[in-house]
């Protein structure tokens, strides 16, 4: 983990987080909405920020961390420069995304939830992005590709990784 020397209170980004909390009258039930804002801004849930959030909403830090770790959507680790999402919902599974996951492991040594050592690529597994009619679906930095064979899918990934810099 990188050491954090940031002073969140002086940070402009912190102001956006405060706005979210104020919109919910700084009530404890603003917590999940606030965590969404933190992750939108920083890309992950920075522990210093989480402590500040706990302070601001007057809830024990343990509860903040408890909530942050309960939900799949939240990540306590920074993401890489690029993100590949592989949908592993039922329709995508039946149509071969399990092979794509195995291939990512073999060729890029990444399992879902991991980020490459050079911090370039994060692999994320999604439960179903809701485009099941296009299964199998992958998202390269948010751009959806669907209805491709296993070979075509791996080509899309390689091409994207080659072009992405």
């Amino acid at each position, binding site marked *: 983990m990188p050491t954090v020397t940031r002073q969140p209170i002086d940070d402009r980004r912190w102001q956006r987080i405060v706005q979210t909390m104020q919109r919910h009258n700084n009530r404890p039930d603003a917590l*999940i909405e606030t*965590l*969404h804002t933190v992750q939108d801004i920083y890309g992950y849930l920075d522990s210093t920020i989480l402590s500040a959030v706990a302070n601001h909403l007057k809830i024990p830090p343990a509860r903040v961390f408890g*909530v942050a770790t309960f939900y799949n*959507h939240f990540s306590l680790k920074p993401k890489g420069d690029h993100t590949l999402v592989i949908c592993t919902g039922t329709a995508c599974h039946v149509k071969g995304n399990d092979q794509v996951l195995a291939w990512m492991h073999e060729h890029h040594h990444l399992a879902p939830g991991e980020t490459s050592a050079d911090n370039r690529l994060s692999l994320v597994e999604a439960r179903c992005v809701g485009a*099941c*009619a*296009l299964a199998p679906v992958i998202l390269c930095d948010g751009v*959806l590709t669907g209805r491709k064979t296993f070979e075509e899918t791996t080509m899309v990934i390689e091409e994207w990784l080659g072009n992405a810099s």
Partner: protein
Amino acid sequence: MHREKIDRIITEHRQFLDQFNHHVFVCSGLGCPRNDEIRRALERAVQTQHLQDAVLIRKVGCMGLCSAGPLVLIQPQELMYQGVQPEDAEEIIASLGKSPIQRLLLPADLAFFTRQHKNVLRLSGRIDPESLPDYLVAGGYQALLKTLATLQPPDILRSIQDSGLRGRGGAGYPTGLKWATVAKAQGSPKYLICNADEGDPGAFMDRSLLESTPHAILEGMIMAAYAVGASQGFIYIRAEYPLAVQRLKRVIRDAEQNNLLGHSICGSNLNFHIQIRLGAGAFVCGEETALIRSIEGKRGLPRPRPPYPAEKGLWGCPTLINNVETYANIPPLITHGPEWCANLGTDKSRGTKVFALTGRVRHTGLIEVPMGMRLREIVDDIGGGLTEGHTLKAVQTGGPSGGCIPAALLDTPVSYESLNELGSIMGSGGMIVIDETSSMVDIVTYFMAFCRDESCGKCTPCRVGTAQIHNLLIKFQNHRATMADLEMLEWLCDLLKNTSLCGLGQSAPNPVLSALRFFRREFLDCIATEQAHEEVKP
């Protein structure tokens, strides 16, 4: 007073629309990728061909047949083009009013469209999801205006009860009964929740409804609030659905600005506000008590029921919680009267149901059919049969809480009862067609891994049981199982079903039990010893 304002918007918008000879509808659902580019290309083509006064390009919601997308619909001729790319734009605009482009044309009589019965999907793909005037011109908010002007809450409650509508979120609980309970409940304020968590992998009905006709969901919710006496509503929606969230925010703002939400709605004494709450990727948060805790900003752990949310829900107050599609059914039901819904479907399963038809069928997408339609008609007619060279093995319904219907039982009508009898469920409406290339053992192992990962861990049978069942299934997958494992598997499934605290654990064994019932041979074939061959076929 308010009526006049609405009527004026309708008249003006209609005049605007009538100016154009051709309307080009571009599907802008998630299932039609690159639709932004297609729309821009079409707009450019209109400019270069100087047709700004004659042709209107419009963005609309999902047209249903996502597998043929991106789709473009030309009105008034009702021509549908499939697989459209931005490069086709010039040609499409040039062909307007002349003969259609054969290369792109979808046959007008495709069973996929003609065999459906659209009720809640009626306006999907026909209006701009974010345009309030569009929804109004299509008859939107008329049910609400009628309700506020002429009906009392008990009238609505009676209509919903008489219609026989059942919740579309999974369990099929009678909607009228739930509403009446909340209306009667002591305590204030009363809350209203729209469950838009849609955690079932393989299902996207709710996403599509929210993206295609978000105003219709609001309208249903407002009418519900009036009927039960709620003043604050929440839409709990998955963070994985950013487009739906964005559209909801927009329509909530528009509704507020036009006095369809907020204080004294349409001049009545109804006050009702709606807030959006984002889910954060926990399947169990679709369960109502877990969802309520999540809105309260806590970990989404279910709690035992009773008390039911109708009596003690959000912050301990009476709370009405319904699924997206359930709310979407309300405006047409009030418009057409309860008999109309009651006359569709079967005796105990009334109305229509939206399904996400996916897997190994030719036509995949979103469909709506009257309850009671046979699975065979759905798969063969609407779905166009299996993809080339494959044969049907089973249809999986209800996601990780459901089961599979084998090919031999394809004449089963789709209703809550008939699916239950076969050990499956309607669920929220995921329908996955499975062919001979899939192994049932693999599929149930997949579902069990899902439930194991998503178990909240609060109760032991579910936390430990899902893991143990999953381990056993892996032994089957690796052909290392024994007859004792099979017995253990059945015993554990039974245990889980009967001792888990919430629906997740109670229903997690369903896929396994249903596969064991109809595809036992596949499990026996995974048993390493000779014992297997002695067991008689079921």
